[in-house]
């Protein structure tokens, strides 16, 4: 299926991949059961849960290195796709490493993660990054997760096309529209969109349109407080607060490729890699896919300007990976050892440098990849936001609503629908 990647993972896990994963775990249970008492020769066995496809091998390598340093600990790497069964069975592993999103937030807010504030490494994390995780959920008195890897996303653009048409990288909304119009006049598709994979719509179009105008963390914090009171008379609401951002989104969508409605994520990577469009609203996870199409394609990234003040530009970020130790672990001591090992600056920084991401530690090094250079300043100065779409529970089909809004041009109806959905979810306390 679609690659489950840094920030914009698809909103559903397919039933097949879940069942395959579940079957894998079931198959592994007897083996694990055998290993613990005897086989290890006095070694303690712990489980490390990490399922990000692209870096499973990378973490395997790190775990072996850890075992060499700590011969008394054996680490089993569980890479099952879905996280829910882990907690449903009350076997969430001893150390977890997962995308910090609304799904993980449910476990945090229900106290499934233990407090890591006493760990030496906890103090080395940038506070402006650890604040981000609190926007989704907190558990009083606990540092539930340690941010491990920060991914930043913006508009990916084809440098050759921009140079050919003598276009600058836009720094204001007006400039951005001018660039799109010029491209369109020249017969170049300004933006390639892939509506069929709905997650690409909210993580790109929706999140970028909102993020630099409305602070998503603050907005959704207030929305949760309001709950069922969200409506035409409340101080914030989708219809009121996101009206201007969605005007932007509507304009942006008028520059999409004509067949955007039936194109998927893979089509987008292929088309952009072949130079069929000038811009692509995707995150760093798409860069490796684009490179597979054309290794020499010169691409850059910039933060989408949605106001006419260049200083208001911000980058969309997400904590692509964070570490946690579930409260249920029977091997907390060993789990802490592993977390401290992974949090070592040389290991954490190397991981992020190698995987198109940013260090979460104070004084972490800059990302050296040329393609991401345009976003470094935003990460350095914490001019970033977590995508608004990531705050919307999956029971609201935001991506599908966007499909319909783009087709009909009626974004106002979508915002009203979102308000109605929000009230309904709030009435049964399901907004987290």
């Amino acid at each position, binding site marked *: 299926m679609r690659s489950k990647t840094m920030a914009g993972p698809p909103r559903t896990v397919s039933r097949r991949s879940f069942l395959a994963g579940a079957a894998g775990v079931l198959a592994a249970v007897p083996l694990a059961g055998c290993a613990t008492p005897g086989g290890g020769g006095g070694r303690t066995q712990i489980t490390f849960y990490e399922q990000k496809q692209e870096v499973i091998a990378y973490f395997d390598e790190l775990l072996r290195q850890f075992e060499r340093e700590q011969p008394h600990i054996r680490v089993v790497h569980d890479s099952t796709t879905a996280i829910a069964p882990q907690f449903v069975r009350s076997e969430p592993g001893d150390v977890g490493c997962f995308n910090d999103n609304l*799904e993980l937030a449910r476990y945090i807010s229900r106290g499934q993660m233990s407090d890591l504030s006493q760990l030496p490494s906890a103090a080395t994390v940038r506070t402006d990054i650890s604040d981000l995780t609190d926007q989704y959920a907190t558990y009083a008195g606990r540092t539930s997760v340690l941010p491990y890897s920060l991914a930043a996303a913006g508009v990916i653009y084809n440098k050759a096309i921009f140079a050919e048409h003598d276009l600058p990288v836009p720094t204001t909304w007006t400039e951005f529209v001018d660039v799109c119009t010029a491209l369109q006049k020249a017969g170049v598709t300004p933006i390639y969109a892939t*509506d069929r994979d*709905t997650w690409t719509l909210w993580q790109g179009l929706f999140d970028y349109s909102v993020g630099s105008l409305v602070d998503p963390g603050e907005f959704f914090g207030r929305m949760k407080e309001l709950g069922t009171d969200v409506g035409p008379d409340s101080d914030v609401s989708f219809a009121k607060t996101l009206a201007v951002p969605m005007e932007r989104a509507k304009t942006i969508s008028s520059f999409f490729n004509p067949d955007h*409605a039936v194109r998927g994520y893979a089509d987008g990577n292929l088309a952009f890699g072949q130079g069929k469009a000038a811009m692509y609203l995707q995150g760093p996870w798409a860069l490796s896919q684009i490179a597979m199409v054309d290794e020499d394609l010169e691409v850059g990234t910039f933060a989408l300007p949605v106001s006419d003040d260049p200083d208001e530009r911000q980058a969309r970020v997400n904590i692509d990976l964070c570490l946690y130790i579930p409260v249920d672990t029977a091997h907390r001591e060993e789990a802490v050892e592993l977390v401290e090992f992974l949090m070592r600056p040389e290991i954490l920084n190397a991981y992020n440098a190698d995987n198109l991401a940013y260090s979460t530690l104070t004084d972490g090094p800059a990302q050296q990849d040329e393609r991401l250079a345009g976003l470094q300043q935003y990460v350095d100065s914490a001019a970033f936001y977590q995508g608004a779409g990531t705050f919307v529970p999956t029971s609201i089909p935001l991506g599908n609503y966007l499909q319909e809004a783009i087709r009909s041009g009626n974004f106002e109806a979508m915002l009203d629908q979102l308000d109605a959905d929000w009230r309904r979810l709030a009435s049964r306390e399901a907004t987290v």
Partner: protein
Amino acid sequence: MTTTTAPTTPAAPVGRRRRHGRPEPIAYLFLVPALLVFTAFVVVPALVGIFYSFTDYVGFGNWSFLGLRNYTALLGDPGIREAYGFTLGFAVVTVVVAQVIALVLAIGLSKRIRFAAGLRAIFVIPMVVSGIVVAYVFNYLFSNTLPAFATAVGLDPLSQSILGNPDLAWLAIVVVSAWQTIPGALLVYTAGLTSIPHDLYEASSLDGAGPWRQFRSITLPLIAGFVLINTILGIKGYLGVYDIIVGLTGGGPGNATSSVAMTIFGGFTGGDYAYQMANATVFFVITVLISVLQLVVSRGRNIRL
């Protein structure tokens, strides 16, 4: 099927039992493995699910009772109502389309035509291909091949993929679902047709009955039981439609093609476990009601399975 047929011939089982005495106790033993597996993997999880539908359980941790709150919330949820409307409409249309085509094909193949065996094998191929694969292949056809073809021959309405059109996307799902399920129905009908004695047709043609008359008065009544089986199994299958939609439209555009099964599964990853369990319970009851209704109607018409 055998258990449900018993009442239609009430005298026979009793008489038989009396003649042969009580069945060997060991016969019950043969039922045990199936019963155990069925209970452990179907009945118990279903009961657990129904139980949690009255709570605010998210799949782990603490929970408390909500009474019927999940159910009342369901009633007021337009997304859920749309999913039910789409799923029921889709099931009815698809079952009609698939049964008619399968029956026509089966009758054609039952005639002594050339290459009947080869054709039968070809028609059965869709059955052995996984649904998600079928869906992705058709997705490509609908998104690329069909629009290209329509543009080439000047069929403007089809030059844009129907998958991107909320008014037409359901048609694509009907086509693919029917394409995939016709072979199963075809096999059942083929079996049904071979069970009809040939002399009936000979006798009727001597009496001057044409092919249409023969079909109406001989073929259809004698395979009515097979039609019923296919319809019940078909409706049951179509109500649970999932993988075809995931591969074709993902429930879009908008929510135009979101099925009930998709909304239920969404609750699993979306932290809406208990709520979607309530949805699943309602859906289960509706499915059972439809099946019972079909059985009652067919029994009233004296159709035997």
